[in-house]
């Protein structure tokens, strides 16, 4: 793989002497993709709280920490593998590896160590079912998504989205050592949310992806097909988003919020579908992208709040 960082190192080799790192702890933290980690922490914590039984609070805290570090390890290994792509895209070219602050070898070692450490810690603190799911998630994100699908098919984020959808299942399993219909529904919501969310981003960043030769749907199948696919996935996502209310995972408030936010998603997806002019479509895609983050955060937030209120009332009674 021809890398910008390799080129930097090669240029450096023209001068004699050893190489001394100027990386800071902040650069290593950036390798963990902290913004993705925060979403993982939130959804995993919701999954853990929705479980019928809860572990000791300290064990719960350590479990969520291990899941967060595992997600960070996956992000770090993704940056190790995709450093050549990251160097070509404006959104990612300032990441520590393409910017030359951390070498790929260092990132690989750091990522592998964090991955192994997080899985072992989760296994020892919670149970080996949750640890196995975390190990599978990291493997799936790196090997199946990053190494295989990302550069070979426009369905990359559809299948690869499974990795991002697993944290609530891991959180639930950390509490129960089990995978149930309830946790599978939480998985399904994130899994179905990923395509409209990622393709909305890919629409207004399509030139970046084209430059990096990543076959995202707008690059491989065109903008019209992407807008149609976004609408289709949103039509499936909205009823799936309301399902927790039917299963008893969420209450009436959740059901109403899920339908209201779902109507918002559908409205924005339909407006995007109707926009054929490129600039207007980019604007509509940005609105949908922003709202999709609010949609998922709100759904999981309401599930969490409902659960906490129920526990408080249960304690008071």
């Amino acid at each position, binding site marked *: 793989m021809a890398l910008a960082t390799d080129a930097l190192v090669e240029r*450096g*080799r023209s*001068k*004699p*002497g*050893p*190489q*001394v*790192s*100027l*990386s*800071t*702890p902040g650069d*290593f933290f950036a390798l963990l993709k902290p913004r993705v980690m925060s979403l993982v922490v939130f959804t995993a914590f919701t999954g853990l709280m929705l479980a019928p039984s809860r572990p*000791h609070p*300290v*064990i719960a805290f*350590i479990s969520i*920490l291990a899941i967060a570090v595992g997600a960070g390890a996956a992000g770090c290994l993704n940056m190790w593998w995709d450093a050549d792509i990251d160097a070509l895209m404006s959104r990612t070219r300032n990441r520590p590896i393409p910017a030359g602050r951390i070498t790929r070898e260092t990132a690989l070692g750091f990522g592998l160590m964090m991955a192994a450490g997080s899985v072992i*810690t989760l296994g*020892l*603190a919670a149970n080996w079912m949750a640890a196995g799911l975390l190990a599978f998630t990291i493997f799936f994100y790196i090997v199946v998504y990053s190494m295989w699908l990302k550069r070979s098919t426009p369905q990359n984020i559809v299948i690869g989205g499974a990795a991002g959808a697993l944290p609530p299942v891991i959180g639930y399993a950390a509490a129960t050592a089990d995978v149930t219909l309830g946790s599978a529904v939480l998985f399904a919501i994130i899994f179905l949310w990923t395509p409209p969310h990622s393709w909305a981003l890919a629409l207004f960043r399509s030139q970046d992806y084209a430059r990096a030769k990543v076959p995202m749907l707008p690059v491989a199948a065109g903008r019209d097909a992407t807008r149609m696919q976004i609408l289709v996935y949103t039509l499936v996502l909205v009823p799936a988003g309301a399902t927790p209310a039917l299963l008893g995972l969420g209450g009436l408030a959740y059901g109403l919020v899920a339908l209201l936010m779902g109507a918002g998603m559908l409205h924005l997806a339909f407006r995007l579908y109707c926009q054929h002019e490129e600039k207007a479509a980019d604007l509509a895609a940005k609105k949908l992208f922003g709202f999709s983050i609010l949609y998922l955060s709100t759904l999981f937030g309401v599930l969490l709040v409902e659960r906490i209120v129920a526990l408080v009332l249960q304690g008071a009674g």
Partner: protein
Amino acid sequence: MMREVKNGVVLSEEEKRRRRQRSLALALVLGALVLLFYAISIIKQGAALNALHS
């Protein structure tokens, strides 16, 4: 950063400062890990003892 040296590597002040930052961060992480595994051990042993006596 590359340079020619004859008697080992001589770090600049900036390089020394950043190395110190990395060392401190690593020490904090290792310390946190010790506390983490101590907490896991105590809680797991406590739960096992409770189960034994009940």
